């Protein structure tokens, strides 16, 4: 038993240990090897880090739920862009312009609704056709991105509203709105996954779908709810980010799905479903952002950053496999 607790501790703690090692490494490397003249572990830098992690982080939280459930969603990047466009473009509509600042919450609602609907479409297709979520959302990724380009061609969509910008840059204890939204999402979804029936069923379906069906769980509708959730969160991520930036490029959000999946997997969620945690994903998101910032801090370029993250991802999964194999060696009679 001792052994099992220890193993769990190592597994859940690994990502946080990795974060601490990074912090120390970049601090030391920056200072002693004089690769940078500023401190790395400084509060402003860390607060900024949380804000920068927010767009992918919010999506990664939704991705965790979908992946624990045994599915995947590759269309989140396109959903993110489309929700951003709907939000900013709707502010330019005559009746919205006439409303003044009162149009802002309405624009947010439009965006969130768009995300939820796109998620609903994915979910219903996965449920009703039985086609693998990977394929369905791969198609959706292409399709939704097509919608993005149909909306405004190659041109960016923009609308600058200073009230909205002020809102996006407002802060509590130095945490700006996107970071706050991210933290709120982490908390709410963490509660959902650990304390509610829906969360319990998500794990059960991901681990053993047949057993879940036999236990009388309505697997199809459950899966749809999770797709709606991730679509909603992708849109929420767009709302948090574009309220401040005021401009969407049709290529925005590309590769977001892969970054989100990377963070989720680094955080210990099993690709096949049934195991994983929201807090682990939070760790994964922070670890990736830290790596980017840290490597930048000591003067590495983006290409190097991607190479390092890719290598680490594979190394982590290899270690995880080794850890798991020990327990799984019993023979089936």
């Amino acid at each position: 038993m001792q052994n099992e607790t220890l193993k769990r501790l190592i597994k859940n703690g690994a990502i946080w240990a990795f974060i601490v090692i990074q912090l120390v490494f970049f601090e030391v490397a920056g200072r002693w090897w004089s690769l940078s003249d500023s401190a790395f572990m400084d509060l402003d830098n860390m607060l900024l880090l949380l804000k920068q992690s927010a767009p992918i982080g919010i999506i990664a939280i939704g991705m965790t739920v979908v992946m624990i459930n045994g599915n995947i969603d590759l269309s989140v990047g396109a959903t993110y862009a489309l929700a951003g466009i709907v939000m900013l473009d709707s502010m330019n509509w005559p009746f919205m312009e006439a409303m003044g600042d009162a149009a802002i919450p309405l624009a947010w609602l439009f965006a969130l609704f768009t995300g939820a609907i796109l998620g609903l479409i994915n979910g219903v297709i996965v449920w009703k056709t039985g086609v693998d979520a990977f394929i369905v959302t791969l198609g959706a990724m292409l399709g939704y991105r097509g919608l993005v380009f149909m909306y405004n061609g190659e041109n960016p969509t923009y609308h600058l509203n200073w009230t909205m910008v002020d809102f996006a840059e407002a802060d509590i204890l130095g945490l700006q709105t996107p970071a706050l939204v991210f933290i709120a999402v982490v908390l709410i979804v963490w509660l959902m996954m650990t304390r509610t029936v829906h969360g319990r069923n998500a794990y059960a379906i991901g681990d053993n779908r047949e057993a879940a069906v036999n236990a009388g769980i309505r697997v199809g509708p459950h899966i749809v709810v999770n797709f709606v959730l991730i679509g909603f969160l992708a849109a929420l991520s767009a709302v948090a980010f574009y309220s401040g930036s005021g401009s969407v490029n049709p290529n925005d959000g590309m590769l977001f799905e892969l970054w989100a999946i990377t963070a989720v997997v680094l955080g210990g969620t099993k690709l096949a479903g049934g195991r994983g945690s929201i807090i682990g994903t939070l760790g994964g998101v922070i670890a990736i952002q830290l790596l980017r910032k840290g490597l930048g801090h000591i003067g590495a370029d983006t290409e190097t950053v991607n190479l390092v993250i890719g290598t680490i991802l594979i190394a982590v999964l290899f270690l995880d496999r080794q850890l798991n194999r020990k327990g799984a060696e019993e023979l089936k009679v």
Partner: protein
Amino acid sequence: MTDHTPALRLEGIVKTFPGVRALDGVSFSVLPGEVHALMGENGAGKSTLMKVLGGIYQPDAGKIFIEERETEMRGPLEAKANGVMFIHQELSLAEELSVAENIYLGELPRKSFGRVDWATLYSRTDAILEKLKVGFNARTLVGDLSIANQQMVEIARALTVDAKAVIFDEPTASLTDAEKVVLFDVIEGLKAQGVGIIYISHRMEEIFKMTDRISVLRDGEYRGTLNTAETNEDEITQMMIGRSLDISRNVEQVELGPVALRVENLSCGHLFEDATFEVREGEVLGFYGLVGAGRTEIAETLFGLRKPTSGQIYLKGEAVKITSPIDAIAKGISLVPESRKEQGLVLGMNCRDNMTLPQVGDLTAGPFVSDGAEISIYDQYRDRLSIKSPSWKTAVGNLSGGNQQKIVIGKWLSMQPEVLIVDEPTRGIDVGSKSEIHNLLRGLAKQGYAVIVISSEMPEVLHVSDRIVAMYHGRIMREFCATEVTEDSLIQAISGIEGTAA
């Protein structure tokens, strides 16, 4: 026959798994040109023995001789190199490839630069197929063949090497009568070529028609070899079931309640046809038959996993339709499935969460699941079923088979069902926990549950049931009262022997 060198000889094969002695000193030999039947109940060790022969398991002790040459089988390739070939019950063919490619998979004839020598491949294959007198050629896609013909491809594969021994595992399980005749001809042909054949089957009539000698395994032990011509079904049956096993039947008579479940003329395609039976409260109804006889399918239909094609189900006298597991659970039917790891448990989840899975939706306080309510249900059924687990937090995957099964039973008991169906209650469970689960099932009936037990193990059905339904090929052959049934009549009923149909 003593002047022959055996094609294959086993000496004192022992194989143990944690908690189970699967093979305990098995020795017998197969002569060239002989069809040698290997018989035994499910779980007697036949498949383990075959896996040892095939190099999938390494024996803990004992030797394998091929033509009196001691041989170690370290893997399937080595078994093949030594001339031991298998015709498996479950076919392992690549459906998208041609017959020829399947037969020579892994050793396709080649030309320079690694190119496949198609001409040689097809001519060699056609030569083999000719010997088998089959109606397809080397270029046919395996996916387009019938099951029987796919089996022929497997047999053809065995003929590509200089086979010393060919093992047929339940070869007729999915064949029609006409196809069987073809298969038997092929076996006769192999025999004439001097190949030693091990023939595994439960079907007495085939055994007596096809084989020269019969070896019997029981509980992993070798019970002896008889000449087929000098024995009969009764003797073999006796050897297979033996009497050493404790089947102290529960004679205690319980006052039976009203009929809880009645099924009339229920059919589901050809899986099972015209099933009619009833279970009363306080009674255990046993379903006995071979694997594939349609017992599990009946259970799945009652639990809403399959749609019946005709027939009627009555619960407490009321006609009902059961459309889904959700529906079945709501109507008071619970199913402990055949394979607890695949269908019953969420292995990565802890004991408590597994037990409360079907009802966790009702155990909430506000938006959250109530820990207290869950723990109290878990504690209650842990005590009632004496589940041994370090704590409710332990992942179910780490428990022993017996305790895992109790978790599944506890899960369904906590739903207060009217009818509890238990499919293979003790599969893969050690002997000690077996009797515990048997007592548990008896106890449940005594408390007034209507219990249906499906089992492939005769001692088990005899021990727990009040009445036994014997099935063969999707049909209910006979219904026995536990106090009047004999093992012979039961074996005969599930083997489809004529004159027993009620």
